[in-house]
């Protein structure tokens, strides 16, 4: 009984990992994100859904400042990671991105060996002191990426020679190798077939134990399957944010309802 209560409490009082307050994003003259307030919990999968061009990917890229690489993009408002504003002048985006890893829509392994793909992050951040430690870290990351068994005999083979689903899991392994605290995924399954998608989804559910995962997806079934929290974006606004079950069964906003029932999109 005592044990039970403790478990209950840890589930309920999950720490807030990322808090966004009044975030605005402008691309030149276009107002892409309007007044977004959202709180992303630790050790939770949060899904961003919404029609194309609604700003969900843009918002995701704000969370590790990938938008900095776009000259015309301007972000205002606060995004707090563990209470620290990531857009503060003192923050080096490179250091931030080591904490907030990212997996992209299209699998993009480096045209190097599988080993080097995973080892690259630890190498540039100095996470391993010697070859043995690095080997261990690579193996651990590939296991977390649920791809170790498939590639353990050919770590020297080029990462680009793998199948699409394997490449994406390699990219996830690469992202977790730098020991991030948050993992951002921008439509990680849109280029994959259903079997590979199932594998990646299983992996995401597994990753939730260690990281806070934010996933952008076009597939509402996927959002329903993998996430605990869901945010619905529409035309740059965060329309609704809440428990996944509640969003899909009992949405408060009529726009959310129209979208999940297929009337807008």
């Amino acid at each position, binding site marked *: 009984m005592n044990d039970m209560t403790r478990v209950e409490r840890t589930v309920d009082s999950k720490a807030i990992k990322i808090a966004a307050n009044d975030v605005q994003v402008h691309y030149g003259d276009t107002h892409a994100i309007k007044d977004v307030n959202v709180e992303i919990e630790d050790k939770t999968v949060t899904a961003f859904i919404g029609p194309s061009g609604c700003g969900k990917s843009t918002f995701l890229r704000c969370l*590790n400042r*990938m938008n900095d*690489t776009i*000259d015309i993009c301007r972000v205002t408002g606060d995004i707090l990671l563990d209470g620290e504003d990531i857009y503060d002048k003192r923050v080096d985006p*490179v*250091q931030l*991105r*080591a904490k907030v*890893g*990212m*997996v*992209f829509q*299209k699998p*993009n*392994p*480096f*045209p190097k060996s599988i080993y080097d793909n995973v080892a*690259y*992050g630890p190498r*540039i*951040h100095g996470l391993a002191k010697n070859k043995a430690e690095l080997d261990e870290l690579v193996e651990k990351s590939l296991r977390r990426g649920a791809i170790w068994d498939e590639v353990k005999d050919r770590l020297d083979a080029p990462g*680009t020679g793998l199948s699409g689903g394997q490449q994406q899991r390699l*990219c996830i392994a*690469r*992202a977790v*190798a*730098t020991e991030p605290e948050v993992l951002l995924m921008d439509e990680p399954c849109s280029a994959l077939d259903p079997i590979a998608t199932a594998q990646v989804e299983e992996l995401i559910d597994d990753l939730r134990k260690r990281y806070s995962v934010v996933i952008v997806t076009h597939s509402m079934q996927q959002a329903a399957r993998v996430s605990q929290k869901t945010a619905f974006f529409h035309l740059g606004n965060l329309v609704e944010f809440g428990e996944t079950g509640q969003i899909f069964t009992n949405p408060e906003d009529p726009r959310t309802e129209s979208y999940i029932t297929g009337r807008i999109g």
Partner: protein
Amino acid sequence: MTDISQTPDTTPVAKPKGSLFDKDARTKRRNAAEGRFKLYGIAAIGIGLLMLVVLVTKIVTAGTGAFQQSFLELSVELKEDKLDKKGNRNIEDIKKVSTFGYAPLISAALEAEVQKLGIQTDLKPKGMGKILSKATQADLRNYVIANPDEIGNTVSFRFLVNSRVDGYMKGRVTRESIANDKSISVPQLDLVDQLRDAGVLYKTFNPDFIFGSDASDQRPEAAGIGVSMLGSLFMMLVVLALALPIGVAASIYLEEFAPQNRLTDIIEVNISNLAAVPSIVFGILGLAVFINYMHLPTSAPLVGGLVLTLMTLPTIIISTRASLKAVPPSIRDAALGVGASKMQSVFHHVLPLAAPGILTGTIIGLAQALGETAPLLLIGMVGFIASNPPDGIVAGFLSPNSAMPAQIYEWSKRADPAFYERAWGGIIILLIFLVTMNTIAVILRRRFERRW
């Protein structure tokens, strides 16, 4: 659904268009147009190929002669009383004997050879000597100075013959064509015929054309392209050492780091414009800046290299930027996504992927620079007689020299038709270099081409 049924489509149903086996007029016209276009394309390619074949045939037929030269083999007695009167083999004393001192030895040797072979001729020894090159005396003197111990011995020697005799051996000069030529006469050609039949005067491969130095107007048979080849080599070293790092650094900055604003736009447009600037403009710029203002030595490969660097830079920058652009942005995202800095993403991932393209662009830029003549006109590399190879690396950069295309231009300007043949021969050597470089560029591009 109801909306659709309320406004029925009143246009009649289309009639069947006839059999698929008969072509209608429109299809026939389109097919004919396509056929005509293919024909034009084939004709265009055919014309291009024909031009190429004509060009290559002309170059090969006109230029191969330059790689062969006629020689006369003679046994020369190096008389001690003429060459080393004191008999002590002191090199300084031997050097006091000028080339004129060697002339009698050579004509004596020729006379002896003619007598030995039993050749009938009315020519005086001096007239016989005219079939030899004016370079022979100097050649013999250089040999004696290099080997003073041979004085007193009889040495078998291979002498260059006069360019007219060489032309006669190659069929360029005939008995009819020399009617008004003072440097050769019919009896001399008779002598040449007999010497050739005796086997002492023959045509053979002449490595001195490839490795030797240029000679004055009087001695076309002795001229070679070797020294100007060295001039080109030193220029290319300068171009490679300057244009590659500057060009690559500039393109990486412009492509990866520079903000997109009006200033970078202007720079970009101007780099493209620079690539189209006529090369002679770079020549006059080099003259004004490097020679008149900075007082670098005239005709030096260093200056030539600097001018060609200016000319090659835009080519390298444009091709480098193109190959950087061709690296998919997903690779940059991937690197940034795992927390690499901008510079790490460029140097660890983008640059290695762009390297084959950069190398290809550089090699093609170098090949362009190698064949460039116009800017060299203005900095004095054309018109310089590259008669001595540079002694050492520093001299290679700083002492006056010519370059391969400048040498070819120089030869084509000279009056003696023997130089004309050498100009074509020089073109063959230059083309061999260019084709080799372009082949390397193509191989690099093929071998290291990556697919994503």
